[in-house]
Structures are given as C-alpha cells and as structure tokens.
C-alpha cells in the first residue's frame, strides 16, 4: 500500500473518530484534506505558493483583489458565461 493511500485512509479514519466524539469541525477539515490529496498536485502546488506568501509578508487588499478576480475569471469559464 503506498504512502498516499495510507495517508488518505488514516485521515478518513481519524475523521470518523472525530465525528463520533462530536468534533464535527475537525472531522470536516480532515475529510477536506483527504479529498484534496486525491484530487491532485496542481492545487497543492498553488497552495505551496500561498504558504510562501503568508510566511514572508502580511496579506494586503491587493491579495484579496487578486484571488477574487481569478475566481471570477475561472467561474466564467466554468459556467460558460460570455465575457
């Protein structure tokens, strides 16, 4: 069993335990992490850049403008909206 699969199984198992003990927020976060691992490397690479940004400086309004702008552009592509 490879390490990625083992990690996913472990995360989901701990999420189940968290849910059973009533810690729903932790359970949801762990399931998000497990699913994100499965979905792929592109997202992970993007978030690595975000991590670097947060480590080196404070957030600015321009950072928020940038991410919201990218979301808008990609939403138009996703939903087939005219420019």
């Amino acid at each position, binding site marked *: 069993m490879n*390490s990625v699969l083992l990690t996913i199984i*472990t995360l989901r198992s701990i999420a189940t335990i*968290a849910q059973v003990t009533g810690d729903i927020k932790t359970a949801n976060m762990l399931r*998000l*992490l497990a699913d994100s691992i499965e979905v792929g490397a592109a*997202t*992970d690479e993007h*978030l690595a850049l975000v991590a670097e940004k947060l480590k080196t400086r404070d957030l600015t309004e321009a*950072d928020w403008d940038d991410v919201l702008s990218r979301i808008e552009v990609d*939403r138009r592509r996703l939903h087939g909206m005219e420019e």
Partner: protein
Amino acid sequence: MKYILVLCLALVGASGCTGTRAAYSSADTIDEYAFVLTEHYAALVNQSANIVESPTTPELSKRVLRQAESRVNEVMVGTPEAPGVALLARAYRKGGADPTKLQEAIDTAIVRLADFVRAIRGVVK
C-alpha cells in the same frame, strides 16, 4: 482535538501534499485562514474550468461540477447582501465584521468545499 488536527497536517505533509499542509499551517489569524480557504477554492475552480473546457468531458460531469461550485461560491464569496467567507474576512480586516459570523461561514465553507473536491474527484476518476 486540535492536536490531532496538527498531527494530521503533519501526516498530509509526509504524504507529499506539503503545499496544502504548509498553507493551512501558515495561517496565524482567522482572516489568513479565510484567505487560504479562498485560495484553495480558487485553485479548484480553475481545475474545474479546465475540465469543463475539455471536449471529452460529458455534459453530466459539467453539470455536476457547476452545481457543486455554485454551492461553494454562495458561502465562500457570497454577495454584498449575503457575504461569504471572503467578503466577511475583508470586512474583518477593516474592523467591520463579527469574527463569530466569519467563523460560522468558514465552517460551512469547509463542508461545501469538501463536497466540491469530491465532485471533481468523481469526474476525473
């Protein structure tokens, strides 16, 4: 359970998904956490848009992705009348939003973002 979350983030790092782990670990404040969540959502919207634009993607898969994304968008961005995580976090930075409301929005967004991730996973498999 917080220490368990920290352990799991370490586990995610060990599996090779260091970027995701690093981003969430780097967030020191609630608005930084909101920013990471928003960027995570942005990356998934980009990935979904690429999938939808592929000529081999079935119409049903496109519909699934669009519906899942819309459900995230309403709590992640929202509207001025019903602000989501991103709009609340920006207002919080300026001292104009209740951190409890922002936390509630984050909690809801995590669930819907996970649904979105599962929708993408279902399409790419």
